[in-house]
Every structure is written in structure tokens, then in C-alpha cells.
């Protein structure tokens, strides 16, 4: 659009004071296009498809940390945080929280048990055994305590004691295939392949499609046949 400078010619001046429909449409199109482009740019930058990809472990840790901050003297809050760290494979931090819970509630069996789990995760098997043995004496039918004690003995290389503890766990829960699988692992580590095979078969009798047990069985059978030694 030009300004009309030829004042002496009103007709020409009038013609030059006009806007063609084509030009107007171009302006409208540009305005619409710019609005759409800006609208989409803002939308995809700030509002749409903004799914947060959450890490459940970090969420669990963050949530437990808040609880600890709010209740520093609550052993349960420390246990929760310890568990969150343990699941996130942050063993040192887990042990620290479990130890704090134990300091606050030394007679709480749940706290003792969790601290023992922390020690097992940190491969401090002797410390775990110290905590778990009294638990199995206090509550002889405590499946978890017997099972974890078995794991701790196994980690320490005391296979007979491990089998003894795991057998007690199996007596309490005879339908738990994982106990038999763990016993098979212990026998395998102890070099007693026939007993290991018997226990893995027991696990498979309970859960025929138990993949880990099937792998362990083929591993043990492979060793028997002179195959290469490999873990489950």
C-alpha cells in the first residue's frame, strides 16, 4: 500500500488508495500461518506430549527421604528409605538407614531383619548371621528369617548350615519353589550335584515352567555330562 502523493489527480489518487483482494488474502494467510506455527511451537514445547518418564526407584527414594525428613526419629521411615536404597542397589546408603533404624529400635524384630538383609546385600554375612540367628530362635516359624539365614550361611561358605536353615524354611513353606531352587544352588556351590539336581527337580515339580530352575537344571546336567561349568 503506497500513500497517495499525486493530489492534483483525484482519480489516480483514488486508485492508488486501494488494497487488492489478493494482497489482503496474502496478509491473512501469513497471519494465520504464523499463528499456527507459533501455536504448534508453543504447544509441543510446553504442553503436549510432555510425559515425564519416571524412575520408580528415584520416586520411591524421594518419597522415603521426605518421610525421614519429616520424622527423623521414626525407625519405620528409615526402614522405608533403606528399602528404597536397597531396591535401587545403593547398598551402602541402605545399610546406613537400616543401622539408624536399628539404633532407634534395637529390639524391633522387623528392624533387625531388615538390617540383616542390608548386611547380606553388602556381603557382610557374619553380621547378618549375628542378627538372624536370634530371630529364628525367637520365632521358630519365621520363614523369612530361616530363609535369609540360609542365604547368609551360603554366602559365608558354610553350606551345611545353609542347607539346614533352608530346610527349616522349606518345612514352614513346603510349596515355595524358590526355596528348593536356592537349596539346589547351595548344593551346586558345595559340589554336590546329585543333591542339587534333586532339589531343582523339586522346584520344577512345584512350578514346571520355572525358567531359572530350568536353566539351573541344564547347567547342573551339563556339568554331570562333562559340560562347561556355568552359573544359573
Amino acid at each position, binding site marked *: 500500500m503506497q*500513500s497517495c502523493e499525486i493530489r492534483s489527480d483525484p482519480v489516480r489518487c483514488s*486508485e492508488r*488508495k*486501494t*488494497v*487488492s483482494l489478493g494482497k489482503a488474502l496474502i496478509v491473512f494467510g501469513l497471519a494465520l500461518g504464523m499463528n499456527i506455527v507459533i*501455536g504448534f511451537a508453543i504447544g509441543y514445547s510446553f504442553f*503436549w506430549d510432555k*510425559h515425564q518418564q519416571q524412575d520408580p526407584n528415584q520416586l520411591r527414594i524421594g518419597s522415603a527421604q521426605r518421610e525421614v525428613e519429616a520424622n527423623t526419629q521414626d525407625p519405620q521411615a528409615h526402614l522405608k528409605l533403606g528399602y528404597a536404597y536397597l531396591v535401587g542397589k545403593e547398598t551402602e546408603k541402605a545399610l546406613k538407614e537400616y543401622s539408624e533404624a536399628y539404633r532407634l529400635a534395637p529390639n524391633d524384630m522387623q528392624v533387625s531383619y531388615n538390617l540383616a538383609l542390608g548386611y547380606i546385600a553388602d556381603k557382610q554375612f557374619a553380621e547378618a548371621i549375628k542378627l538372624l540367628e536370634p530371630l529364628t530362635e525367637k520365632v521358630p516359624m519365621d520363614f523369612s528369617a530361616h530363609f535369609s539365614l540360609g542365604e547368609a550361611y551360603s554366602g559365608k561358605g558354610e553350606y551345611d548350615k545353609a542347607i539346614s536353615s533352608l530346610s527349616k524354611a522349606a518345612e514352614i513353606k513346603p510349596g515355595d519353589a524358590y526355596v528348593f531352587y536356592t537349596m539346589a544352588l547351595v548344593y551346586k556351590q558345595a559340589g554336590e550335584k546329585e543333591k542339587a539336581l534333586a532339589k531343582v527337580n523339586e522346584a520344577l515339580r512345584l512350578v514346571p515352567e520355572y525358567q531359572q530352575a530350568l536353566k539351573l537344571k541344564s547347567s547342573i546336567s551339563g556339568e554331570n555330562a562333562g559340560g562347561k561349568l556355568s552359573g544359573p
Partner: protein
Amino acid sequence: MGHKKVFISKQLSVIFVLIVVLIITIASLAFFGWTYSKRVSPVEELAGRLMPVRQPTWIATVYGNEQVRVSQPRAVFAANHEIFLADTNNHRILMFDYNGKLVRKFGDDGEQKLVFPYGMAVVEDEVFISDLGLNKVAVFDSKGKFLRFFPVKLSRPVNVVYKDEKLYFADIGTHQIVITDRSGQEIGRIGRPGQKEPGGLSYPNGIAVSSDGRVIVADTNNGRVQVFDQQGRFLEELLGDSAQGKKAFAAPTGLATDKEGNVYVSDPLAKTISIVNRQGQLVSTLQQVGLPQDNDSLSLPTGISIDANQRLYVADYGASRLVIYNLK
């Protein structure tokens, strides 16, 4: 075609152009503002209507946030760009926006507390929640304010579906589907306690009503999915891949249908979502959560829902999370 010109005075033409540009800008602001507030892009909406249904692809997994974490959710309902999740173990309902961001929680405080929220349906601005602890259907508004108990006689309501002015309740106490109108007046019942025979139901958990009015029922303890007409007459059983000699479903729990009429069946014991076409044949199964390298899968999928944009929502009870998939 000649080049046609419209002659108007300069001032008027400039004002006219400015007004139109202003109208375009205001309309764009209003339109985009609406889509921003709903957190859904117009492309997504359009694709939901135009694109064919495909194999589900994972979009997101929602665990809540540090203050409000999901625990053992039983049901999910998605509509109008909002997601309602029955956070059953925490006795509450969580409401998320379209991006899975928590908007509010309700039902765990206030005038009426929920005990075991199990199934949900949103009817206009009201949220119907079947509570297996209260053995009642509680009605809240979408802001989380308790309004009333729905006046329907049910023994043990586990699920509720709304379609065409009717409410369908799955009642595991009477082993039937109870149909009512919006006022709670009973219109009819579907099924009867039974096992092998057609129409026999045992702990029916899930309901879906297809676009042509067929009532699909997850006959959970009988391990099958049956289809009825609106009068409660048995029509057929969805066989899945049982034609190949396999059992189609272990314990079907949740049901949903997509725009093409495919039926999605959550089967927590099998840890899968089975997708069955209109002919009742198994099309595919869904287990994967996240990307293939994440090596994650559904734990105990219970409630499922599909929204108008063809997104599938799964309440994964075992892993305490909501999983969102794209179907288009």
C-alpha cells in the same frame, strides 16, 4: 480468470485487514489455549479419529509423584483428556491430566471416604465409583466433592460402565450385570450364577458395551468372555485363541473396546492384555512396558480404558502404576 480488484479507501482497507488479522489471532489463541489447557494436540485428536488402530505402542508409565504415589490400582477411566485412576490400596481416586501429571486426589478425606474403590465411570461431570468396601456406588463431582450414593441395590459392586443413558454394574455378590437408568431405576439384569453353561457367570468383573449395544462381560472365575444383547440374551463367547486348543483367558478382569470394535481383555493371572477382534479371534497380546531394552512387562493388569484419541490405559495392580499405550 481476470484479476478482480476490490477498491476501498486506504484507511478502511487497513482497518479491515487489521480487524481480520486480529480475529485470526484471537481465534488461534482461543483454539490453542484450549488445546494447551487439555494438554492434547489437535494432531493427536485428528489422528485418533482418522488413523486406523494398530498394535499398541508404549507411551508412558505413571507412578504418581513423591508426595502421592500410586499403590495397587484396580481401575482406570479416561475421558475428556482426563485420567481417573482408582488408587485402591490408598483408598482414593487420582486424577491425572493427558500427560499423566497428577492434578488432584480425592476420596481419602472429606465427607465420604472411600474404602476399596474398584471400578469407575465418568458421566458428564460426575464420577461414579463402585466401592467394594462400602458395597455401594459413590458419586463424586470431578473436583472430588462427594455428592451422593447412587440409589441402586447391589450386593458387591466391582465395576460400572455408562453407555447411552444406561449404567451397567458388575455385581460379584449376585454374579450378574445390573442395568439401571440415570436415576438408579433397575432396567434389567444379565446372566445368572453359573459355570459352564452359556449365560452362567461367576464373579464377573469387567463390562464393556460395544457401539452396537452388545454387552461384553468378563466372566472372571469361569475364565471366559461372554457377549449378551441388551435384553440379556446370550449371543456368543469370545474364544480368543482357544480355537488352537489353548485356554483363551485365565481370569479376564477388565474390558475395553476401541473404535474398530476390537475388545481388549486384561488378564492379570496371565499378565497380559489380549486383543480380540469383532469375530472373537485373538489378534495379539500385550505384555511389554517401556522400550524393549527396558525388559519390563505388565505385572497384574486389572482395569483398562480406551479414550476417544485411541489411547489405552492400563492399571497395573502388581507394579503399582498406570501404563499408557498408543493404539494409532
